[in-house]
């Protein structure tokens, strides 16, 4: 292989970060404010810096009585070779002339152009607004479907104008958020008409252009109008998902369909974007007009066009008709989570009772009264049921008839669930202690002062005990209650830890999902959620699932800590997701139990209860059980 062939080349990206005034030769220095070009354009300030020069805001002095503001786009010709220099100037003039013939509300008007020494200038309409990249950067959440569809339709319009230009079709070739401005009236304006492109080729000859928005065929030099369609699809995808394609492997849009990331977007609009993003140009829309038509159609179907999008939740009404196999009504809210053992469902209620129900029929078997609300998930161990109550006690009763075995008194309400290991039950309480109690005698082996209430359920793995506290401490201790390591989150850790392959995972009210090395407590990664989480994560394969009070269910790659998908419910998610077969089940304070495809986050169905769901479902033998604050416990077909 030749050395020349082996020399790698890179894809061009605009090196906006490289300040031109660092150039020691002084050739590429920016114009200072106050400079006047051709006695007419008074430079006011720099509004952008690109690879070939700056863009300035300037005042046109030919209108002395009014302030007429223009944009001055500068291109600095650094080619040494005279022939190359003149070619660049000629190309520049040709393109300026072309731009002068264009007349479309989404294309800035050109007023003038001229060259001075090594610099050439375009005088353009000043667009008072922001480009989409800036809008994306400033936005905390996804750009709304309504806006994206409106802008998409306008962009189709201007692409259609360009593609039908005579005598020669104009291919924009560089559709991306930073080349689309939104003016003060909220309409799109395409900027950067590739005039700078001939200049860039000389600068770094080994590179070709992609910024993650260009289609595969552009790398074979076949950029036709369908390349613009693809790039428009890519731009809309970026706006709706906030997933920057420049940070992803190229042409991977199909691996992350819009709704997998932002489930609020309608199926219809996702379909339009997916069609635009087909690898094979023949499978995309055949023209910008066709894509515009499809967008309008989708927007009508979903009501986006008539702005009823805000109340649009009825796209999956089919799921609303799901009938429970049975339901059972307690006398107060069910905030905790059901447990299953040997054909019986056990669930605690705020009516202070622990209920045992026939799992197949929902038939009431017995109840056991405590003196406080029960919010935990009962644990079954050797014929006994272990659960805490707000009456400050850990209760241990027989699974068959609910006969009391023993109780253990703490000094505060017990909201943590139990974990049983090595003949002892470990449980936290609001008295700020972790209690280790012998399962046979009900006597305390020890208790360890954690300094603040423990609502997180302790976990024992490899002879180490893990739990979080309401003051944000996370402890790893051994069976002697000696602290092996401690980690401090910024806010409470109510979420219960999960250990998987030597790593412990838990969420915090500080809006972070943590992954810590289970042996040393070193932080491996942190995943930022939009809001607090008290959810216990769930791990299946390479995915970790959690919920947040931001209303979302998250699926995160457990190795890279990258978001795989999110699903948005209509209120807080406080219960934990569980995965059963191919589905993920999770309740929401919006009252629904959701069933999603766990790999993609697509909604399979949702079931509406009459009150917020705060607990965690359990799925056994093709039935899923969930409690609701509407006092009921439901059994549904999984």
């Amino acid at each position, binding site marked *: 292989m030749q050395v020349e062939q082996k*020399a790698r080349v*890179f*894809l061009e*990206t605009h090196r906006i970060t*490289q300040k031109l005034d660092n150039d020691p030769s002084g050739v590429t220095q920016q114009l200072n404010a106050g400079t006047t070009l051709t006695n007419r354009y008074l430079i006011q300030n720099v509004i952008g810096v690109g690879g070939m020069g700056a863009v300035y805001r300037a005042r046109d002095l030919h209108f002395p009585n009014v302030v007429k503001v223009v944009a001055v786009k500068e291109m600095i010709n650094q080619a040494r070779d005279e022939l190359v220099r003149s070619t660049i100037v000629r190309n520049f003039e040709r393109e300026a002339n072309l731009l002068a013939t264009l007349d479309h509300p989404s294309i800035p008007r050109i007023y003038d152009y001229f060259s001075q020494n090594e610099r050439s200038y375009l005088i353009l309409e000043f667009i008072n607004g922001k480009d989409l990249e800036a809008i994306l950067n400033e936005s905390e959440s996804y750009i709304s479907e309504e806006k994206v569809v409106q802008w998409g339709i306008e962009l189709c319009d201007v692409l259609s104008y360009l593609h039908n230009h005579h005598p020669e079709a104009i291919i924009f070739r560089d559709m991306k958020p930073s080349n689309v401005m939104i003016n003060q009236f909220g309409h799109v304006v395409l900027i950067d008409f590739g005039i700078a492109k001939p200049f860039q080729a000389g600068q770094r000859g080994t590179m070709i252009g992609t910024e993650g928005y260009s289609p595969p065929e552009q790398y074979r030099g076949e950029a036709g109008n369908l390349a613009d369609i693809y790039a428009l699809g890519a731009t809309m995808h970026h706006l709706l998902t906030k997933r920057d394609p420049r940070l992803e*492997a190229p042409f991977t849009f199909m691996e992350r369909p819009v709704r997998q990331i932002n489930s609020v977007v309608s199926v219809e609009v996702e379909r339009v974007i997916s069609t635009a993003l087909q690898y094979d140009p023949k499978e995309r829309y055949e023209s910008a007009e066709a894509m515009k038509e499809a967008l309008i159609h989708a927007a009508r179907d979903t009501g986006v066009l008539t702005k009823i999008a805000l109340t649009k939740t009825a796209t999956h009404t089919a799921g609303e008709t799901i009938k429970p196999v049975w339901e059972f009504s307690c006398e107060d809210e069910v905030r905790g989570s059901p447990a299953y053992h040997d054909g019986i469902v056990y669930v605690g209620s705020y009516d202070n009772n622990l209920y045992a129900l026939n799992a197949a029929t929902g038939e009431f078997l017995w109840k056991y009264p405590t003196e406080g609300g029960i919010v935990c998930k009962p644990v079954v161990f050797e014929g006994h049921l272990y659960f805490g109550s707000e009456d400050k006690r850990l209760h241990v009763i027989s699974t068959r008839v609910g006969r009391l075995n023993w109780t253990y008194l703490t000094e505060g309400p017990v909201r943590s669930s139990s974990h049983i290991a*090595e003949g002892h039950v470990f449980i936290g309480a609001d008295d700020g202690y972790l209690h280790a109690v012998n399962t046979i005698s009900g006597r305390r082996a020890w208790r360890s002062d954690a300094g603040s209430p423990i609502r997180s359920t302790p976990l024992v793995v490899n002879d180490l005990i893990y739990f979080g506290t309401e003051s944000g401490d996370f402890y790893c201790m051994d069976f002697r209650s000696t602290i092996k390591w401690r980690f401090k989150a910024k806010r409470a850790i109510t979420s219960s830890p999960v250990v998987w392959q030597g790593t412990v995972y838990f969420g915090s009210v500080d809006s972070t999902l943590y*992954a810590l*090395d289970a042996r040393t407590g070193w932080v491996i*990664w942190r995943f930022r959620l939009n809001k607090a989480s008290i959810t216990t994560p769930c791990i299946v394969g390479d995915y970790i699932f959690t919920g947040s009070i931001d209303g979302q269910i998250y699926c995160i790659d457990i190795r890279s800590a990258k978001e795989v998908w999110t699903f948005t419910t209509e209120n807080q998610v406080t219960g934990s997701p569980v995965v059963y077969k191919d589905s993920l089940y999770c309740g929401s304070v919006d009252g629904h139990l959701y069933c999603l495809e766990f790999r993609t986050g697509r909604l399979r169905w949702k079931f509406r209860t009459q009150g917020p769901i705060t607990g965690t479902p359990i799925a056994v033998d093709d039935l899923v059980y969930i409690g609701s604050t509407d006092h009921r416990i439901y059994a549904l077909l999984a």
Partner: protein
Amino acid sequence: MKGFFQKLFGQDETVPENISAGPNSPPAVENSNTPIKNNLEPPQLLAACAQSVGMQREHNEDALFALTTSLTSDHSNLPFGFYVVADGMGGHQHGEIASGIAIRSMASYIVSKLFVPLLSVKPVTPEESLQEIMQTGVQEAHRSITKQVPGGGTTLTAALILGEQITIAHVGDSRAYLIDDQGKLEALTRDHSLVKRLVELGQLSIEEAAVHPQRNVLYRALGQGEPFDPDIKTMRLPESGSLLICSDGLWGVVPEEEISRLVNADTPPEQICQALVDSANAAGGPDNITAILVRLPG
């Protein structure tokens, strides 16, 4: 375990007999068929490296860094290893400088941010996560290259082994593999190669790709492009086997079966590294060759 618990909790009651002690409690019987386990006490990493300019190049644009330590005290043993391979780009753009800067910059960041705190008398864990530290390390290397050799570029594949975790940071087309005792190769990295991506999509045939003018185009490399985002992932370190990090001068020339056969030979790591490099040179040695091999504690 039972006795331990009785002593620990100081109770008279017998611990129920049927608590499972776990499948691993009897000492594992040595398997004489797996000669490559290093089985040392304390468990430790054994690392070696080899490099060659190859048979057809005049310059070496590959760079490597390897740091292996053992820290055993207070009844705990924490193996620490940090390994980097960087493959500089192109002839005229100072590829060898870029790869050199990349490993120095990355290594000094990781050593100061992770290794030094690990050795301090009162060990402190850093505020940032391991992945964030690796990410910042790569960004530092990226910035150094942009500043010192504008236009220069390099791949970078780094592996951090700390305790039971391995964290990989990766940009470009050097590779990291795990090779198990049976010789099964698992690539931990994905090449950032444009043409490979087009082949995956069926946009190019393998034959077309082989002669494609952009077959050496990387869509991500250090020193090139903004925004910039390395691939970073963490997984549990296998209990035995080997980690191999190498430049394309090895993996692009020596078939995977051959790599796996050589890695699992019953010889010390330094001899294996040499054998890998020799094998690439025997196949023509068209490019610089770099290999780092780490035997995992097993």
